[in-house]
């Protein structure tokens, strides 16, 4: 009876169908004999469940094209119905996807019930599509960083549908509860660099340039203008004349030694010994006398501005 009701809504297409619909409505058993070859072909082409293919063919009198068209239109609605039925099932598995371009980086987490589905190509294609759609939406906005939760995400648009629609379609296809749990976004600035790391529970998976795995992290670093710094150090070397580089790690003892030397009871005849630092790192920086060269270099190294980490199936303390 479900079949009858949904077809009734489409007035435009009732005429060729009315005869078979009437038969369906009046008699519980379908009189239209479904052609086996047609059923096989339709099933192979669309991959929709057997029973639904058969019902569709019965409705359209073994017309494969019409049946296929109708099923694809119905797929969205049926997807939502199935999603509604399954929505309370716990989802502990899934995938995390990371899309990075030079100017920004998007991470999404999509959950499902079993890890069989997480390995399935159809599910992975969904995750890729969702990542691309989220990325498009975020880059068009003006957020610098965002971590967005389920409710907002499902209403984002993607090619005329919403993300929630895409997920529902796949739920209908795979028969498991699937959800787009959260998404994160990091935007790059002029003087920063973004990078990422994705960990998959097996060999690395990449689809359409998007990396898939169980864990993903993105980091934004403030990177110094290395050329300018190098020039300044060169200027210092010309000016202060170091003889050797010295140790990167600041020695503590030297200060005591140099203090000791100064405290030595000096003979009045001898001129005062001025300790001249010959090691580059310990010299007072030419352009900033408050710092040693070492301190100047350390304060101008790369700095972490921001980071995001997504773990698939993480316990976030939600319901």
């Amino acid at each position, binding site marked *: 009876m479900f079949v009858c009701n949904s077809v009734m809504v489409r007035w435009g297409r009732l005429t060729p169908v009315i005869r078979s619909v009437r038969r369906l409505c009046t008699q519980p058993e379908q009189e239209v004999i*479904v052609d086996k070859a047609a*059923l096989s072909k339709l099933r192979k082409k669309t991959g929709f469940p*057997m029973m639904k293919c058969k019902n569709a063919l019965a409705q359209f009198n073994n017309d494969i094209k019409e049946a296929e068209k109708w099923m694809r239109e119905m797929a969205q609605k049926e997807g939502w119905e199935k999603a509604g039925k399954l929505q309370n099932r716990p989802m502990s598995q899934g995938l995390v996807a990371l899309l990075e371009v030079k100017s920004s980086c998007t991470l999404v987490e999509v959950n499902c019930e*079993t890890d069989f589905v997480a390995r399935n190509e159809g599910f992975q294609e969904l995750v890729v599509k969702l990542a691309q759609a989220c990325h498009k939406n975020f880059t068009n906005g003006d957020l610098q960083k965002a971590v967005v939760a389920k409710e907002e995400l499902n209403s984002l648009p993607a090619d005329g549908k919403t993300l929630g629609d895409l997920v529902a379609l796949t739920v209908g296809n*795979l*028969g498991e509860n699937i959800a787009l749990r959260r998404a994160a976004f990091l935007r790059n600035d002029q003087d920063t660099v973004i990078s990422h790391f994705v*960990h998959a529970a097996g*060999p690395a998976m990449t689809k359409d340039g998007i990396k898939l795995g169980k864990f993903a992290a993105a980091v934004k670093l403030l990177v110094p203008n290395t050329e300018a710094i190098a020039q300044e150090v060169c200027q210092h070397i010309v000016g202060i004349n170091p003889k050797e580089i010295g140790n990167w790690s600041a020695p503590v003892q030297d200060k005591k030694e140099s203090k000791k030397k100064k405290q030595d009871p000096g003979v009045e005849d001898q001129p005062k010994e001025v300790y001249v630092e010959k090691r580059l790192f310990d010299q007072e920086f030419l352009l900033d006398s408050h710092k040693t060269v070492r301190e100047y270099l350390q304060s101008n190294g790369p700095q972490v501005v921001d980071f995001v980490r997504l773990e698939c199936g993480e316990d976030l303390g939600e319901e």
Partner: protein
Amino acid sequence: MAAPLRTVAFLNVKKIINFPCLTLTKRRICGTNIANLNILKRRRTLFSQVEVLYSTTVDGKEHCNIGTIGHVDHGKTSLTAAITKVLAETNPKINKFIDYSSIDRSSEEQRRGITIFATHVSYETEKRHYCHTDCPGHLDFIKNMITGAAQMDGAILVVAATDGTMPQTREHLLLARQIGLERVVVFINKADIVDQEMLELVELEIRDLLEEFGYDSINTPVICGSALATLNGDEGKYGKPSVRKLTETVDSYIKVPKRNVDAPFKMPVESALSVPGRGTVLIGTISEGKVKTGDAMELLGFDKKIQTNIIDLQVFKKSVPECKAGENVGVLARGVKTDDVRRGMFLVKPNSKKLTNYFEAQVYALKPTEGGRTKPILNNYMQPMFMSLWNLEACVQFHANTPMIMPGETQKVNILLSKSMVVTEGDKFTIRENTTVLSGIITQALPMSEQSIVGFNKLRPIQMKIASGNSAVIAKREKNKKK
């Protein structure tokens, strides 16, 4: 050993083997026997819950481990309940009907510290005793393989006729391949609500898929039926008779690897004794093959390969001319010194086994909640590896494209040992820091690796300092001065 093979089935291997049988006086022999008999009696009552660990026969019947794979909503649990119902009717004394609601689908068990989601049901047909396992996920099946006492021998793939094969059925078959299942039986469920044509089409689809994954698409049995109808007591074509047919097919189609008495002789050495005036006796339980006095043998392990001959075989202080797999014996070997022998070496037929220090294994990294690490494991992880009879330093080397293993994950890795040993496919091991970090199973023995890592399997040469007369005297005087 004295205990007949069938009762061995009830006991934990460790409990039986560690009693020395040769140098005991009569009193001690009696003592250990009686103690063990008590254990036998206690364990007998727990049989229905105890997994068969050691033997492949139980009460004279062959034992088989099978599992069900398939989509969550296609009726795996109903089918399991239906099988128990049908078998409970044919043989109510041995089998009990376990209904759908009693099968706990979210049951968790702890094995060797690892948490696995698995449901176990056991039942018996005329021919065999079965242990039926169902796991919700891919990882759980892998964990079951790594920690389970026995390997899965076959699986029942459940597909609902209303849906046909789902996209994730491919992943189910991939898993079956990964855990080494050679044969699967297919059960098409919900067959009573579709017509014959659809059943044929679904069967064709399944056969195509089996072909794709390297299974025998022509000979794999496909049975149509309805688990629900069976549970409702339907005697029609798709009711109980279909499930009966399923059990019979599983009996005949799924093969159980038999403990091979025709395989070349292999015996792990558990301990060694020196019998004054006669030589060294190696004690262990023969795992494969037959042996008789006078046979030439090789003693392999810890980089050593010793050729020897068997002078005498003893079982419970009595000389026997011949022994076969399953028996605990003392082997008097010619030309073997007690210093040469170590627990964990293997006595094998000459040229049947090779020493190797390199093999491939499937490992699972334990989660912090299971007692494992919190930090991920990086490449070239070196820690002691523990097998049942020996332990050595091992270096875990990842395959390409694997930067690390997070706790809670499973991965295929290569392991390099510090000394070469006899390794067999299917052997289980653990790698420990202070607690168990990795639990694994050997999947393939690889040829000896040439890798030489200083401090691991290659020691730096130590410079010998020979104290010459004069300097030694001076050094001693200085030492005494300081005192």
